[in-house]
């Protein structure tokens, strides 16, 4: 009897292994029905591939200057043109993908994981712990996001590591909030009481029972967060407060070369921006599709 009621209360994610494989296949099929989401997934995969295999794909070294070929328009030799130092744009954009994706993924991983842990703790423990953590989250959220990232980078100095740190901090509250509400919902479910009744410790309950229910919103937040983080890293680099030159970064390319030569060499201003837009677009579409697929199941 208890076994049956448990199965109906627990979505497939936590069920037995055979059911879990079936759930994954269902998930994949449902995601496949959303063409925009699949498009986003494909583009994101291409970007990640580009980032990983940058040294192999890029036609030139992004730092190499070719002083004979300054500001060449896109052509056979330099597929997307060259900048004022004679560096190949295409190579710089390919290597820029590395920075953007590295910063995007790492900061989201750090920020959402820290936020998720705080949210888990907050939702499960309740009471004073919950209140204290929520106050902290409110304080962080009281800042406009870019301004907070700016302030942290201003204080700590301009480097890739500090940008990652700043972005992670800014991402914590949202992840915490979403995971917390899942955790609260789960904590009140019957099977948690049942687990406690048979003597399961709090840690075990947290990780074996509560955590899997929070996975879906976490995935949604994380995917959307990557798009956002890429945008903010580009913005910071554009302001000169992100990835320090000459490391190729899409935002940095738009500020130095893009601003100064927008009229005489428009390709310098167009392609890096296009790259940023494409990346953010892809992850946003993917995030939207994931939310459509995962959310209705949660509501049930």
């Amino acid at each position: 009897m208890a076994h049956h009621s448990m199965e109906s209360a627990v979505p497939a994610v936590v069920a037995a292994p055979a059911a879990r494989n079936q759930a994954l296949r269902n998930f994949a099929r449902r995601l496949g029905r959303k063409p925009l989401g699949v498009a986003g997934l494909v583009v994101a995969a291409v970007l990640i591939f580009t980032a990983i295999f940058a040294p192999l794909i890029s036609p030139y070294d992004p730092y190499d200057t070719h002083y004979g070929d300054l500001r060449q328009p896109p052509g056979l030799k330099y597929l997307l043109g060259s900048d004022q130092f004679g560096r190949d744009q295409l190579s710089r954009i390919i290597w820029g993908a590395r920075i953007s994706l590295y910063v995007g993924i790492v900061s989201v991983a750090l920020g959402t994981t820290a936020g998720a842990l705080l949210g888990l703790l907050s939702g499960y423990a309740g009471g004073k712990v919950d209140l204290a953590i929520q106050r902290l989250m409110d304080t962080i959220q009281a800042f406009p996001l870019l301004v907070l990232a700016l302030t942290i980078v201003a204080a700590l100095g301009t480097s890739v590591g500090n940008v990652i740190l700043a972005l992670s901090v800014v991402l914590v509250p949202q992840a915490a909030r979403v995971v917390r509400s899942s955790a609260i919902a789960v904590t009140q479910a019957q099977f948690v009481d049942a687990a406690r009744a048979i003597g399961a410790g709090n840690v075990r309950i947290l990780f074996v029972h509560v955590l899997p229910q929070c996975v879906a919103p976490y995935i949604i937040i994380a995917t959307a967060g990557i798009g956002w983080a890429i945008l903010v890293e580009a913005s910071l680099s554009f302001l000169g407060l992100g990835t320090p030159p000459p490391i190729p970064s899409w935002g940095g390319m738009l500020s130095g070369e893009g601003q100064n030569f927008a009229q005489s060499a428009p390709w310098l201003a167009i392609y890096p921006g296009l790259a940023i837009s494409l990346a953010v677009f892809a992850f946003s579409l993917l995030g939207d599709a994931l939310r459509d697929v995962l959310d209705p199941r949660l509501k049930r």
Partner: protein
Amino acid sequence: MQRYIIRRLLLAIPVLLGVSITIFVIMRVIPGDVALAILGGEAASGVSQEQLNDLRTQLGLNKPLYEQYGQWMWDFVQFNPGKSLQSGRPVMDHVKNTFPVTLELVILSIAVSLLIALPIGVLSAMRQDTWVDYVFRVVSIGGLAMPVFWTGTLIIMVLVGTFGWLPPLGYMGFFENPVVNIQQVIWPSLAMGYYLSAAVSRMTRSQMLEVLRQDYIRTAWSKGLRERVIMYRHALKNAILPVVTVTGIQFGVLIGGAVLVEIVFVLPGMGTELVQAILRRDYPIVQTIVMLIAAIYVLVNLGVDLLYAWLDPRIRYT
């Protein structure tokens, strides 16, 4: 209603305090010696111990932390938060001149974004799943994905490249010379408005879709009312509430975007001032501007909450 207002106002105070402490802590966490960093970094061997000590005293770094914080808060509340490290002028001077520029940009941007987003959202909902809907949805996601500084750069390129026209240099305030001023501010507002309109139009669309499914809309149809009357008199009024909230939430994005857009269009606003102060390590200015921005953001959020409660009586009683 009054109790709600008072309650929310009181709740805002600890948030503001928390914000000020956070800013203070972040700025004090700067690794290394602040005075040394300001005077030229570790490589500057020409910096004497005397100069260091002078600067440290001037910045009040020798006092205990809570005293420094108290001093800063006291000064801030009196509208005199210290002096710029570079120019020596009071920070308030820097802020006073730049604030109106940013304010005008913000107001125009919100106006532009609503002008773009509301019609798009309504039309998208009315013609759901038709090509009109898809076109509008792609266009509005473009607003989210395209970095606002790129949109700004593209606008400038189009203005100069296609029309051979550039906004007049040398910023003019609105009251100095309205014509020139609008010419200068309209383009960054367009860029920002487009950027903001994305979220608002998506929210408008989904809210309209939900409202259109309601029974009272069906009643309106069966009464024989025309589509436009139904849309604007009945549907939009009910759908507008979360849109108000989203617009308020967008304010945070707006401020971030303002910083970027001001740099692209070379507007002497608070954003430009902030970035320049960061680049030259003018910490008093950075501290003050960030505090100001955060305080405004908190107050705007509060205002939006109150507006929402006023518009929707159901909220007040929860």
